[in-house]
């Protein structure tokens, strides 16, 4: 027997929470998914979309560019994007260590959400972070996203800048003030929680990074990589 069955990611019974300030996006999403929408969940101070449980249990984490066959809300399936995006800043000569935070930019081109295609982040100023945690039915503990942070950024001659010199704010176009991946500051040499998501939800934020610039660092190009890990119970 051969039968066409809906994708395991078919957008049945999805509803966004925290929609109060995202009228334009919600309108767009309604146009996209039409009748499959159910009533909105109770408002929450973040952009979180409720997903219907489906097999298989699955998690998806995207920091920077991502990979999807098409948007989730029209049946898209997640993929692996092996790109590693960079967040960087080049200081002007006269401001090194003057205590004025320096904006960082990213080479990520991810402005749209793979949830619904909505232009959510402003690039190159912001870095997209988002994903989903879907179970086969049960409501479980939240999935946690952590950042594994090196002690310092280093240059080719062994100089270093503590990772704690980098912080970030969190927002998103049409988003309410509170985000699922909130603002923070790196903890040098630590593993820190940067967000979480309840089972059967899609969550996303846009991060704007800054170099705090509170110390005079030796001249050089400093690099370091942060590993983000999403763990579902």
């Amino acid at each position: 027997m051969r039968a066409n069955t809906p994708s395991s990611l078919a957008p049945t019974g999805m509803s966004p929470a925290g929609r109060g300030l995202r009228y334009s996006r919600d309108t767009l999403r309604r146009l996209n998914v039409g009748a499959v929408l159910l009533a909105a969940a109770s408002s929450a101070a973040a952009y979180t979309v409720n997903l219907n449980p489906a097999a298989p249990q699955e998690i998806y984490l995207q920091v920077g560019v991502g990979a999807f066959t098409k948007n989730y809300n029209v049946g898209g399936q997640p993929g692996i994007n092996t790109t590693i995006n960079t967040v960087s800043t080049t200081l002007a000569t006269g401001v090194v260590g003057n205590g004025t935070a320096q904006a960082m930019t990213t080479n990520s081109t991810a402005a749209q959400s793979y949830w619904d295609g909505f232009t959510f982040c402003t690039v190159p100023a912001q870095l997209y972070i988002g994903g989903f945690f879907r179970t086969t039915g049960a409501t479980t503990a939240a999935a946690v996203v952590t950042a594994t942070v090196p002690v310092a950024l280093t240059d080719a001659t062994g100089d270093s800048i503590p990772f704690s010199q980098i912080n970030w704010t969190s927002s998103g176009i049409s988003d309410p003030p509170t985000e699922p991946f909130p603002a923070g500051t790196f903890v040098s040499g630590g593993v820190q929680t940067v967000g979480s998501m309840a089972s059967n939800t899609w969550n996303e934020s846009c991060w704007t990074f800054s170099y705090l610039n509170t110390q005079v660092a030796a001249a050089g190009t400093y690099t370091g990589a942060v590993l983000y890990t999403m763990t579902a119970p």
Partner: protein
Amino acid sequence: MKTSIALKLLLGAGALTLPLIASAASTFTSGAGTLNATATVNFTVVIPQFLYLRVGTGSSYSTGALTTVNTTDLITFSPAVGAVGSGTAVAGVGGDIPGGTETAAIIGNGGNVTLVAAATGPLSDGLGDSISFTQITTTATGNAEPTLLAAPPLSDTSSSETVPATNKVVKADAKWTFSYLNTVTPAAGTYGGSGANNGIVTYTATML
């Protein structure tokens, strides 16, 4: 049923291969039990090399941007009649800090710094009379930074000192107070005050 078996095989293959993805911007994992998905972001901060020297009037080096200020301060010593050559030091007038005192600072991030104080000769009155720069002393006292910037002693030629860096960074300052020793009795006149009369001391910082 065949569809179900194929799906299980596919998921099994995914579970085997996904852990090999060491770095990525997006990953997903499927299946029962604990799941992990990872993403990596590189961070880069580019720090330019710079060297800042201030003696006297200049831009702030604690807040805002370092800028070039083309001002040359004038320190004047005027021994009173009857006290010329008495050996009692005479305080100066002028400088960006009252009392013949100058703010002095060096900020740099490329290693040790050499500071040179250079004169073109003894102070002259333009009539052939002169006073050696060794009659002027410089006393350094603490300012805003924890590292005191000592002053190179003045002479009729040049003198220098090395300001050591810590982790390639130099951040030192002081208040330099100039005094006239007044141990000689020169001819009456106005000495220095301009480049023509050797009245300018040029301080030069060089990152090694």
